[in-house]
C-alpha cells in the first residue's frame, strides 16, 4: 500500500516536472517569429474591393488585361523607386487613362490608404511633376536622359496601377501603385491589409504648390530629429552609429532579408521617448487605412522592447542624417541620397509579413 502510494506520488511529481519542462519547449518550438496579426478592417475591405471593381469596370477588356496579374506572379516583387525610362513598370499608366478611369484608379488608392497616407502619395506625385518642370534635381536622373526603356520621364502621368489576384473579401489579392519615388504595395487578405514592403520617397523634398510649401516627408524628417534630440547623451551614444550610412540597406530587391539590429534598444528609452518613436513609425504605418494601421501599431508596440533605433549623421535638423527603426516585425529606413537634403529615400518593411506572407501562408 505504502509502495503503491509512493509510486503514485513519485509518478505525479515526475509527470508535473516533465510537463513543466516539455510545455515551454513545445511552445517555444511551435511559436512563429511573430504571431498572426489580428483581424482588422472588416469594414474597410468591402470598400476597397468595391473601389477595385469600379476601377476594373471602367477599363476595356484590353486595358484590364494589361493591369491584372496572378497573385503569385513575378509582378509582386517587380517594383522600384526608379522613374519610367529606367525601370519598366507593368500596369495601367495614369497618363494613358481617361479622366474617369484615372479618378477610379486614384479612388482605389484612397480607399486602401488613410487620409494622411493618400495625401502623402499625392504630395510625392506632385513633387515629381515639379521635378519634371525643372528637368530633374541636383542628384538623380535628368528628364529625357536616354534610358533602356526610352527617355526618363517624370510627372503625375508616370504612375502605374496593377492588381494581383481578384479583388475579394476572402481571398488574397494585392494593389500595386507606384512610379518614381513611390512604391505602394497593399496586400489584402480577408479583413486584413498589409502595406509592406513600401517605398515612399521625395525629390524635391520641399516645393511650393499653389502658394503652399509642401514637404512630402517633412514629418518623417522632423520627428526623427525630435526623437534623437530627446535622448540624453548616454542614450545618444548608444543610438548614434559611428559610421556613415550612404543609402538604404534594405531597399528594392532586398525582400526577406534581416540585418543584425544596431543602435539603442527601446527598452532603454523612457515612456515619452518610446511614444515619440512610435509616432515616427506611424508616419509609415499610418499610410495604410486607419484600422489596419492601428492593428500594426499595436503589434509594433508589443515588440517595443526588442525594437532598435539607430542614427547616423548630424543631430541638427536641416543637416544630413540617416535613421533606422528595426524590430521583430518592422524595418523603417530614412536615407537622404548622396548628400542631397532635397532627395530622400525611405523604406518600410516587415520581415515576417512582406506581401502579407504571414496571412497568406500562416
Amino acid at each position, binding site marked *: 500500500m505504502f*509502495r*503503491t502510494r509512493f*509510486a*503514485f506520488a*513519485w*509518478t505525479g511529481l*515526475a*509527470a508535473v*516536472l*516533465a*510537463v513543466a*519542462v*516539455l510545455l515551454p*519547449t*513545445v511552445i*517555444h*518550438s511551435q511559436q512563429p517569429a511573430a504571431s498572426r496579426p489580428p483581424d482588422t478592417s472588416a469594414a474597410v475591405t468591402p470598400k476597397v474591393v468595391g473601389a477595385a471593381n469600379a476601377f476594373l469596370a471602367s477599363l476595356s477588356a484590353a486595358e484590364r488585361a494589361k493591369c491584372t496579374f496572378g497573385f503569385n506572379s*513575378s509582378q509582386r*516583387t*517587380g*517594383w*522600384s*523607386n*526608379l522613374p519610367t525610362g*529606367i*525601370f519598366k513598370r507593368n500596369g495601367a499608366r495614369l497618363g494613358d487613362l481617361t479622366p474617369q478611369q484615372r479618378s477610379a484608379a486614384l479612388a482605389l488608392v484612397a480607399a486602401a490608404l488613410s487620409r494622411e497616407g493618400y495625401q502623402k502619395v499625392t504630395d510625392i506625385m506632385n513633387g515629381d511633376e515639379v521635378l519634371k518642370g525643372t528637368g530633374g534635381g541636383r*542628384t*538623380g*536622373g535628368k528628364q529625357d*536622359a*536616354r*534610358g*533602356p526603356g526610352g527617355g*526618363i520621364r517624370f510627372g503625375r502621368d508616370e504612375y502605374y496601377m496593377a492588381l494581383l489576384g481578384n479583388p475579394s473579401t476572402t481571398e488574397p489579392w494585392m494593389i500595386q501603385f507606384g512610379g518614381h519615388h513611390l512604391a505602394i504595395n497593399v496586400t489584402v487578405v480577408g479583413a486584413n491589409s498589409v502595406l509592406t514592403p513600401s517605398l515612399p520617397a521625395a525629390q524635391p523634398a520641399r516645393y511650393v504648390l499653389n502658394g503652399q510649401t509642401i514637404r512630402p516627408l517633412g514629418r518623417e524628417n522632423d520627428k526623427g530629429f525630435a526623437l534623437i534630440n530627446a535622448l540624453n547623451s548616454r542614450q545618444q551614444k548608444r543610438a548614434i*552609429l*559611428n*559610421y*556613415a*550610412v*550612404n*543609402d*538604404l*540597406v534594405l*531597399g*528594392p*530587391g*532586398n525582400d526577406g*532579408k*534581416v*540585418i*543584425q539590429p*544596431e543602435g539603442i534598444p527601446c527598452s532603454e528609452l523612457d515612456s515619452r521617448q518610446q511614444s515619440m518613436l512610435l509616432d515616427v513609425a506611424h508616419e509609415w504605418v499610418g499610410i495604410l487605412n486607419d484600422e489596419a494601421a492601428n492593428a500594426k501599431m499595436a503589434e509594433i508596440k508589443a515588440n517595443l522592447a526588442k525594437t532598435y533605433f539607430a542614427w547616423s549623421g548630424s543631430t541638427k535638423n536641416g543637416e544630413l542624417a540617416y535613421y533606422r527603426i528595426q524590430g521583430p516585425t518592422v524595418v523603417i529606413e530614412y536615407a537622404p*541620397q*548622396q548628400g542631397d537634403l532635397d*532627395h530622400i*529615400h525611405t523604406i518600410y518593411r516587415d520581415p515576417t509579413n512582406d506581401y502579407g506572407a504571414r496571412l497568406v501562408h500562416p
Partner: protein
Amino acid sequence: MSERKWIATFAAVSGWLGWAPSAGAHRLDEYLQATRLSVSIDRVDLVIDLTPGAAIANKVLAWIDTNGDGRISDAEARAYAEEMLRSVTLKVDGLPAPVELVASSFPEWSDVRLGVGMIRLQAVAKIPPAGAGHHVISFLNTHRPESGVYLVNALVPDNPSIQLGQPRRDYAQRGMTLDYTVGGAVSDVPRTWALLALAILVGSLRLALRRRAPLLTVNE
C-alpha cells in the same frame, strides 16, 4: 569543377540573377559597394552589390571592358569580379578565409550610364567548422577607394545556434568586425531537456500503469 562547367554554371546563375531589380537612387560620382555577409557554421556567404554613379560610368566600363570593344564579355566580367574580390579581405578568428566567386550578374550598360545599373557578385568563404564558443569575423573592402562609398551588414543567421554580436565598423564602412558565438545554448539544450522530460514522462506512465493494474483488480 572543370573550366567549361564552371563557366556554364557561372553563366546560368548570372542569367538567373539578372532579374533582380536595380536598387537605390541614380548615383552620380560615387561607386556604391554594398556587402551583406551571411554567417554559417562552415562558411561565410557574401553578396556584393556594386552600383557605379552615372558620372563615373565610363571609367568603370573601362576597368571592366579591358579590350575596349564597348561590350563586356563573360571573360571580362569574370576577370573584373575576381579582381574585385581580391580587394576583399575576410578573416575568421584571425585566420585568412579566401573568398571565391560563385556567380555574378552585370547590368545593361545603358543602365550603368544612368547610374542605376547594379553589378552583383555572389561569393563564399569556406571555413573550418566553427566549434561552440566565441568567434570573430573581420571584413575589409579596399576596392576603388577613390570613388567608393560602402555599406556592409551582417544578416541574421538562419541557424539559431549562431548568435551575432554588435558589428564594429570604420566610419566609411569599408571594414567591419563581428563577434559571434556558436553554442548548444539555443538549439541543442531545449532538445536535450525535451528528450529527458519525455523519457521521465514515459517511464512514469509505465510505472503508474504497472502499479495501478493490481490495485484496480483488488478494488473490483
